[in-house]
């Protein structure tokens, strides 16, 4: 089974779970006076779940078979591509998400920019540090001082 039909299967499961919630569990919490309304919070989701299940089945059945096209990246040969840096960058983004608040904006952002460049093979350390420091400072100044959106600059233990 090709990848697109596997995804069709996963989406079918998703729509089934969504439909189950819409048809069977959501209406239980509805206040009695709202039951007289012609429209319930679950009405629109019910329609969507039926349509979603229908179209997921169409894809699964292979009814609408297009020619097999190989896009920009052929997933069957994923090992031939630079998979490791891509996964490392995703991990780095997740780490940034978790560290942004506790470690402060200035530290986590410069670390993110430097680590990202290192993962991609950059080795000019001096340039990297300068670029990361300037970019972090400029963005922080723009967002915090000019736009007035609060970004904690320093780690909590430094009073940031």
């Amino acid at each position, binding site marked *: 089974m090709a990848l697109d039909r596997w995804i069709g299967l996963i989406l079918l499961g998703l729509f089934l779970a969504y439909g189950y919630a819409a048809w069977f569990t959501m209406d239980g919490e509805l206040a009695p006076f709202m039951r007289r309304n*012609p*429209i319930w919070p679950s009405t629109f989701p019910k329609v969507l779940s039926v349509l979603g299940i229908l179209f997921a089945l169409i894809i699964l059945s292979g009814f609408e*078979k297009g020619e097999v096209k190989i896009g*920009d990246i052929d997933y069957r040969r994923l090992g031939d591509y630079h998979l490791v840096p891509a996964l490392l960058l*995703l991990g780095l983004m997740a780490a940034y998400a978790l560290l942004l*608040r506790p470690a402060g904006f200035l530290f986590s952002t410069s670390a993110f920019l430097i680590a990202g460049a290192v993962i991609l093979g950059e080795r000019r350390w001096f340039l990297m540090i300068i670029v990361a420091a300037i970019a972090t400072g400029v963005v922080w100044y723009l967002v915090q001082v000019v736009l007035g*959106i609060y970004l904690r600059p320093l780690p909590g233990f430094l009073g940031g």
Partner: protein
Amino acid sequence: MIDGILIGLQTALSIQNILMVIGGCLIGTFIGMLPGLGPMSIISIMIPVAISMGDPAAALILLAGVYYGAIFGGSTSSILLNAPGVAGTVATSFDGYPMARQGKAGKALTIAAIASFAGGTIGAVLLMIFAPMLSSVALLFHSAEYFALMVVGLSAIAAFAGTGQVAKAILMTLLGLIMATVGEGALFNMPRFTMGLMDLQSGFGFITLAMAMFALPEALFLVLNPARSAQGDNGEIKDMRITRAEARSIAPVIGRQSLQGFFIGVLPGAGATIASFLGYAVERNIAPKHEQDEFGKGSIKGLAAPETANNAACTGSFVPLLTLGIPGSGTTAILLGALIALNVTPGPRLMLDDPQIFWAVIISMYIGNLVLLVLNLPLIPYIAKILAVPRTFLIPFILFFTLMGAYIGQNNATELLLLVGFGICATVLRFADYPLAPLLIGFILGGMMENNFSRSMQLYDGISFVWERPMTMGLLAIAALLVILPSYRAQRARARAAGVADGD
């Protein structure tokens, strides 16, 4: 009307106000380039500055400059980085980004600037002529028609976005629609599908999803296949100029989309987003066969259509604001707030009581568009240089800006984890050739669509609005045709191809 134009010119052409337009356009363009800060947020940031000036005409002129600048800035990041920061510029990235990858970034930005200019200027002319008449037409559209209009929009996108695979595109649209139902809706005060998570209470953020669908998979593809970035621009801005033949081919597109975009923009709530998507879908559908295949691969028509339509629609959205006092979009709602703070009440009396404000706004739209063109055309080679940054620096920065965009919008670190998660899902979906644009469009329109659906259900006490309102029924019939025709045609073509093979 001539008197009005003269008053407007007199107000708008003072040195102070011209400086306001220039400043506004520059601020708007540069901040608008950062994904996550759309016109709405930039205008709300500028409101305190505008109000402190005290002069309503100057304040509005500044804000109009910021507005147009922000829309152009948003197109820039869509074209260069495939990172649309605003819903209205998502369609711009469909053809703008492929053009940038073919080394035509300069040309793409020039076309975007000219299309925006033409859309905005023609829109302003139409605004002058039609404003009084259109306000009454816009009131004829009820929630039932809005709902049907959105169904048409979504079917048009699904029918044309998928490469002949309508079912996949529709499934993606539905996925976007169910994502829009997560969180607390406007009409029902209860959280839905949040799985008990507090962070999902307000639903998924638009910026998060837009970044996860477009910018993040693109950046990952660049990492996976470094040759991909080498295929594109190497920093040289080749042929920025538009040839005569190209100008001739986009001129009718600009003309059509200025009109269509303007009239869609007039409908309150429809706005630039629907105008740009519908504009793209319509132009793709009416283009000759060989040009149709170009769409999505760097067609200049596919870039000019949404750019013209969204600017014309922005101008159109001023019609209900200035004539009825009803803001048609989020941005005009903020402008309404600014006007009220400046002691001006928009509405039917505005044109009679404060003609200098009404006309100054319209004239400042022309000037804003003109200044934008004059400022941006010389800047384009420098803006396009972004692509010449080495990939070891460019990719971490793209990732950083996607993260910042999602964070600034919601101020919530969980949003960043969602971004990474959705980004991975989007990459896998792209591997399997599922179109991602319908998902995002479904998500954007989902909330509005459900609200209008619910309102009509309440008004008609059931589903009867579908057959009791002829306009709704007509629109829904068009939507059904849009879905059925392409799949029927594809089936027949396949059957015929199979038959030929058998005969051989």
